[in-house]
């Protein structure tokens, strides 16, 4: 077991991915907010995306298991009330990974149309405001006809 530093813990936690979008880490998604070290005890603070997000339990367990596998056993994970999560907290690398995975990343407010993550066309329509999870909406591309998830802008 190596000595814990905050940077080291952040580095290890890069392996913890969002259970529903397994190509993006919880840091890139903006869920991982803080790491504090007090002697042997490591505290990890996370924030939920949506308040009803059922993935928070899985994420908490993943954090503990990942750190345990590196020899850090005294870990507590707390759900923070602040800051309130929004899609601006998703990093650029996170958005790029999301797009490569086939999910249209959340747009900035200036963009009017959601573009298809497969062919790039902006000729798309919303089929349902809720996709496979609360954070996504279901879209269809009118150009290549593929349906796709859009990670909704939440700010």
């Amino acid at each position, binding site marked *: 077991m190596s000595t814990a530093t905050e940077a080291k813990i952040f580095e290890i936690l890069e392996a913890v991915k969002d259970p529903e979008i397994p190509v993006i880490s919880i840091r890139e998604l903006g869920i991982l907010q803080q790491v504090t070290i007090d002697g042997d005890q490591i505290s990890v603070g996370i924030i*939920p995306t*949506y*308040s*009803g*997000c*059922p993935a928070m339990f899985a994420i908490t367990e993943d954090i503990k298991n990942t750190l345990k596998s590196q020899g850090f056993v005294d870990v507590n994970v707390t759900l923070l*009330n*602040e800051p*309130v999560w*929004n899609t601006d907290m998703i990093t650029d690398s996170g958005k790029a990974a999301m797009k490569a995975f086939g999910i249209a990343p959340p747009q900035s407010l200036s963009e009017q149309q959601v573009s298809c993550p497969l062919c790039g066309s902006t000729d798309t329509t919303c*089929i*349902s*405001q*809720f*996709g*496979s*999870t*609360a954070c996504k909406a*279901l879209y269809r591309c009118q150009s290549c006809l593929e349906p796709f998830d859009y990670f*909704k802008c*939440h*700010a």
Partner: protein
Amino acid sequence: MEQALYQYALRLADSSLTMGQRLAEWCGHGPYLEEDVALTNVSLDLIGHAQMFYQIAVDLSGETKTADDLAFLRDAHEFRNPLLTELPRGDFAYTTLKQYFVDVFNLHLYQALSQSNHQPLAQAGKKALMEVKYHLTRSQAWCERLSMSTAEAKQRMQQALDDLWFYTPELFETDEVMRQLADDGVIADYASLKNNWQKQVEALLKKCQLELPASGWVATGGLQGEHSEHLGYMLAEMQFLQRAYPGCEW
């Protein structure tokens, strides 16, 4: 004052939990797949809101209870939700209109609460507000679609309105203690909530060409713990596992 705020947190939590539980009953019964998913996603959000408000109640109570204890181990007479939120789910028109009424209410409620000088309430209000905006977009669009489509859909919406309308005044019921909390900037001012709600709702009903029922029995009692029989049945199902197997975990 702590006790009053505790009761208020329960009112918020119980309202969200009962709404969420009723929506969850649609799982597998939605009119089509996407809508099934939408209904249950909104349900999850509402149960998440309930969790936040139960946690606030727990923190105020000074007892060693958990948020789950408050949700699963209290009896019907201890619930503080208005009767509206415990009504059976009815048909899709009924669920949709009830959801719309509560979404508009929650929009104004959480806008006000996010300004609360009680920090935990303000944070929870901010979090819930972002999600309620989405809920409202959906329920409002459905109200319009149903009211302006076939004769049967319109008739069902009108029927839902006739049944639900006199349950809505209870959303705005307050007592002396709540008015004091509002004056102190801790909770929302329910008189202005009512005003904002009425303006917005009546404009939509007019657009949908739905007729407000003239008069009827006005529901009350939920906030004092006097509930309809529907809540008892709901809790019997929802609380079964914790009652039968105390402390059971997944």
